[in-house]
C-alpha cells in the first residue's frame, strides 16, 4: 500500500481544495475518453507478487554457462550490493542541489577518477547508458572535432555496438561507417591502411576494441599511430577488467576510451542496466557528453562537489547541446565504484590474471580435442573462438541438454564463422567446471 488511504485522506484534501469531487479537477479532459476500462489485473499483495515472480524467475534454467559476448558473469562481494542499495543512494535524485547531494557527487568524483585511472586517460565523465551508446557518443565527438565524415570500425567490434553506430548515424547522409577487415581475429594492418587511403583526409576516427568481440587483443599502438598519421582520432573500446593486465588505451595514445563497466560490479541481468564508461584526453574535456562532476569549495572554503561544465548539456543548450543525453547510470556507477574500491590495484590485476589463466586453461584443453581448434592465434584475455567439428547448432544444443551453455555460436553475427563458438571463462568457473565442459565436448561424436 503505497499511498495514504484512510477514509479521511482524500475527503479532507478535496474540501481544502474547495471542490466537491475529483471530477471538478479534470473538466478540461475530453469526457468521452476519461476513465476507460483498461482490462488490467487486480492488485496483488506483496506475498503473491513474490511468489509469482519467484516462480517466473525459477523458470529460467541456470546451466553451467560459458557465455560472455559483452555481458560477463562475475562475482561481486556482498558489500557492493548492500551499500549501493542503501536508500540514501538509490532513492536520491540527480544532484542538481549539490548541498543536499554530496554523497552522490563524491561517489561520481571517485568513479570518474577510477575510470580515468583504469583506462589510463586524463579524465572521465559521470557515465553513459552502456558501452555501445558510449561508443556512439564518442563517434559523435570525433565527427564534430575533426569535421570529417568517416568512421573506420573493425569487423571484430561487438556486433551490437556496430548496430548501435549504424542506428545513430545510418540515417544521416553526412556520415559514413566503413568496416576494416579482421581475417585473423584482429584488425588487418593492410586493410586499415587501404581504408585510410581510400578515405584520404576524411577519416574522423578509428575504432579499436581490445579485447575485441572475439576476445583477441589488438596492437593498439600500431593502429593508433596509423590513425594519427591520417589526422584521425583513436577511439578505444575496452573491458575495464581486462585492463588490470592488458595495456590500457592511455598507454597507446588513444584519444577517447569507452567501455561497459558491467564486469566490475553489475549482474548480467538480461542486458541491463549497465554503465557506459567514457574517458578521454583533457583536450576533449568541453566536448565530452553527459554529466561531469567537479571538485570546488563552498562559501566557507570547505571542499565540495558539483555537476559542472553544464553549458554543454541539453537542459541549457537545447538543440545546440553536444548530446541529447540527460541522465547518467548513477546507481550502476555506484556499484562500479564500490566494487573497484574493494578490488584495489592489486585485486584488479589478480582478478584479471585469474580470468586470463582460466580462459587459457580452457582453450588449451578444448583445442586438444579431436576436430577442435582455436580459430585465431592472437593473444586473448578471458574469451576465445573455438572451431568445433560438425554442426555448431547441434553441438550447442547437445551441450545444453547436458546442462552446459557452451558460449555463443558466432554464425548469427558472422555467417562465415559457421562452426565457431565464442567461449568465455570468468572467476566464477572452477577447474572442475572447465573440465566438465571439456569432457562434454569430447563426448560428442
Amino acid at each position: 500500500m503505497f499511498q495514504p488511504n484512510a477514509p479521511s485522506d482524500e475527503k479532507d484534501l478535496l474540501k481544502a481544495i474547495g471542490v466537491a469531487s475529483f471530477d471538478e479537477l479534470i473538466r478540461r479532459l475530453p469526457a468521452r475518453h476519461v476513465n476507460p476500462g483498461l482490462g488490467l489485473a487486480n492488485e496483488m499483495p506483496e506475498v503473491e507478487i513474490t511468489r509469482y515472480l519467484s516462480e517466473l524467475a525459477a523458470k529460467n534454467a541456470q546451466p553451467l554457462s560459458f557465455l560472455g559476448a559483452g555481458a560477463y558473469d562475475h562475482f561481486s562481494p556482498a558489500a557492493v550490493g548492500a551499500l549501493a542499495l542503501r536508500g540514501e543512494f538509490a532513492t536520491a535524485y540527480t544532484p542538481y542541489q549539490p548541498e543536499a547531494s554530496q554523497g552522490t557527487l563524491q561517489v561520481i568524483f571517485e568513479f570518474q577518477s577510477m575510470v580515468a585511472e583504469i583506462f589510463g586517460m586524463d579524465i572521465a565523465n559521470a557515465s553513459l547508458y552502456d558501452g555501445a551508446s558510449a561508443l556512439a557518443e564518442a563517434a559523435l565527438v570525433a565527427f564534430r572535432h575533426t569535421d570529417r565524415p568517416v568512421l573506420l570500425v573493425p569487423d571484430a567490434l561487438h556486433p551490437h555496438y556496430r548496430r548501435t553506430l549504424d542506428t545513430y548515424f545510418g540515417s544521416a547522409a553526412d556520415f559514413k561507417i566503413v568496416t576494416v577487415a579482421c581475417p585473423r581475429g584482429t584488425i588487418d594492418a593492410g586493410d586499415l591502411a587501404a581504408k585510410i587511403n581510400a578515405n584520404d583526409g576524411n577519416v574522423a576516427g578509428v575504432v579499436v576494441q581490445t579485447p575485441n568481440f572475439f576476445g583477441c587483443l589488438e596492437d593498439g599502438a600500431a593502429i593508433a599511430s596509423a590513425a594519427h598519421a591520417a589526422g584521425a582520432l583513436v577511439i578505444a573500446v575496452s573491458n575495464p577488467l581486462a585492463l588490470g593486465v592488458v595495456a590500457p588505451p592511455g598507454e597507446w595514445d588513444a584519444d577517447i576510451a569507452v567501455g561497459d563497466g558491467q564486469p566490475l560490479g553489475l549482474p548480467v541481468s538480461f542486458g541491463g542496466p549497465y554503465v557506459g564508461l567514457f574517458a578521454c584526453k583533457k583536450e576533449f574535456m568541453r566536448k565530452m557528453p553527459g554529466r561531469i562532476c567537479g571538485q570546488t569549495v563552498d562559501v566557507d572554503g570547505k571542499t565540495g562537489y558539483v555537476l559542472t561544465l553544464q553549458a554543454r548539456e541539453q537542459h541549457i543548450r537545447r538543440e545546440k547541446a553536444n548530446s541529447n543525453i540527460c541522465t547518467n547510470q548513477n546507481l550502476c556507477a555506484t556499484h562500479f565504484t564500490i566494487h573497484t574500491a574493494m578490488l584495489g590495484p592489486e585485486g584488479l590485476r589478480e582478478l584479471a590474471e585469474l580470468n586470463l589463466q582460466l580462459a587459457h586453461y580452457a582453450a588449451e584443453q578444448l583445442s586438444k580435442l579431436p576436430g577442435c581448434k582455436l580459430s585465431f592465434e592472437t593473444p586473448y584475455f578471458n574469451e576465445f573462438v573455438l572451431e568445433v567439428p560438425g554442426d555448431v547448432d547441434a553441438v550447442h544444443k547437445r551441450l545444453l541438454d547436458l546442462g552446459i551453455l557452451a558460449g555463443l555460436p558466432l554464425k548469427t553475427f558472422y555467417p562465415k564463422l559457421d562452426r565457431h563458438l565464442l567461449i568465455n571463462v570468468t572467476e566464477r568457473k572452477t577447474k572442475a567446471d572447465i573440465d566438465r565442459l571439456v569432457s562434454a565436448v569430447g563426448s560428442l561424436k
Partner: protein
Amino acid sequence: MSAMPPKNRPVGVSRLETLLIDQSVKGRRAMRVPEAPVAQPIDRLIPAKFLRQRKPRLPEVTEFQVVRHFTRLSTLNYSIDANFYPLGSCTMKYNPKVNDAMANLPGFRQAHPLAPESTVQGLLEAMYNLEQWLVKMSGFAHFTLHPAAGAHGEFTGILVAQAYHRAKGRLNKTKVIVPDSAHGTNPASAALAHLTVVTVKSQANGHIDMADFRAKLDDDVALVMLTLPNTLGLFEEEIEAITRESHAKGALVYLDGANFNALAGLIRPGDLGFDICHINLHKTFSTPHGGGGPGAGPVGVTKELEPFLPVPRVVKDGDTYRVRDSKHHYPQSIGQLRSFFGNTGILIRAYTYMLSLGEDGVKEMSRRAIINANYVRVRLKDVFHAVSNEPCMHEAVFSGTPILEHGVKTLDLAKRLLDYGYYAPTIYFPLIVPEALMIEPTETETPETLEAFCATVEEIVREIKDNPAVVKEAPHTTPVRRLDEVKAAREPMLRWTTANEPAVYGGRSTERAARA
C-alpha cells in the same frame, strides 16, 4: 602518512568524508582473489607489448573502510526514503522495496541477454507481460522496452517517425515542432537525428499558441512533440485539434510521457491521437532514481509504426516466448540503440509496481497525484504568483516573482527549504515562467507531509520579509553550504591525483584542496 586525519580538519566535527584514495595505505586489501588452479607465467600467455605498464592508482583499503566510507557518504545525501522531494517533472514517489527484491531474484539477475530462448522463458514472459500492461494503459498497439532512459526513448521515437516517412517516400519531412515550454531533451534529440527544430510559442498559461502552431505546421513537418500534461502541469485542451491537424498535414504526433503519472488510468494517449510516446518508468512506475539513473524509457507506437520499432523484441509464439533480435524479422526496424535487450533490472521493478497496483491502483495513483498537486496549488496560491487559476494535473507551477522585491530569488527559497529537511522544488523550469517553482508532490505523500511542507514555505516567505539574509545565504545546515560553481567550471578538477603528483588536469586530493 595518508592514513592520519588531516590536521586542519577536526575529527568528528566535519560531516565531510575524505576521498577514499586519501585513506589508502600501500598493501591493504579489501578482498582476496583465489589463486588460479592452473597458472602459467603471464608473459608466456601475452607478449609484453600487450601488458599494462603502470598500475592504476586505486585505493588500498580494508573492506570495513569501504563500508564505512560509502555509508558515511550516503548520509550526506537527501533521498526520498528520508526527505520529501517536491521536485516537479521528476515524480519522486516512494520506491517500494519489493521492486528491488524482485529485480535481484537470481533467475533474473543471472539471465544472460544472449542465452537461448529456452533457458530464459520466465524472464521473457515477464517482459512480454510488461509490454501488455503498457499497451493497455496507454492505448498504443506496441511498445519497445529497449531505450535506457527518457531522452533515449525520444531519440528512438524520432528515428521511428523518420523511418516511417522515408518508407512513405516523404523525404521533405525534416522539421520537428517543439513548444518553447518543452524539456531540453526534445530539441536535443531532434537535432541528433539531423532534423530541424521549429519552436512554437506557448501562452502564459502554458497552453500552445494555436495561431503560432498553425502558422508553423507545414507539409515539411515530420513530427510534433508535446508534453501532456504540459510542463506547467496543465492539460492541453486543444490536444485533439492538434493531433487532428497534424495528421492532416501528414505529421506524426509524439507524446513526451514524462508526465504520464497524471494520465495513467485516467486517459489513454492513444485515444487522443498520439502516434508515439515514451514513458519514463523511473517516474510513473517508481523505479529508484539512483542519484541520476538508471531509468528506462519504453516507446509505444500505433500499429502502423510497429515495423519500425528497434530490435530486440520479445514476442509470444503459442506458449513460447521468443526474442526477435535481428532485422530478419523486422526488415524496416530502425535497429539497435544500445547493446542487448534493455534495462531489464529496471523493467522488472516497474512490472512489480504494476502488479502491486492493479487496475484500480493505477487509477487511484493518478487521481491522488492530481488531488495532492491541487492541494499544494490552492494552499500556496496567495504566497506566490499563480501561473494559472485552473486546476492543475499532477504538478503545480508558480512564479516566485513576489519575493524578488525583497532581493530574494526563487533559488534562495529553494536552498532555504534544504535547511528545513525538504529537497528543493524544480526551479527556473519551464523556461517560459519567470522565477519558476514547479512542485510535484506525487500520490505517495500524506496530507500531513503536504501541509507541513506548505507551512514551511509560508514560514520561509515570512523570513524573506523579516530577515532576507538568512534565506539568501541558505542553506546553513547541510554538509556543505553554497558551492562555487564558477570556480568548478573555470578550474575544472574532475578527478583525484595522489600526493606525490602535481595537479595537471585538475583534481587534487581533498586535503590539499582544502589547504589551498
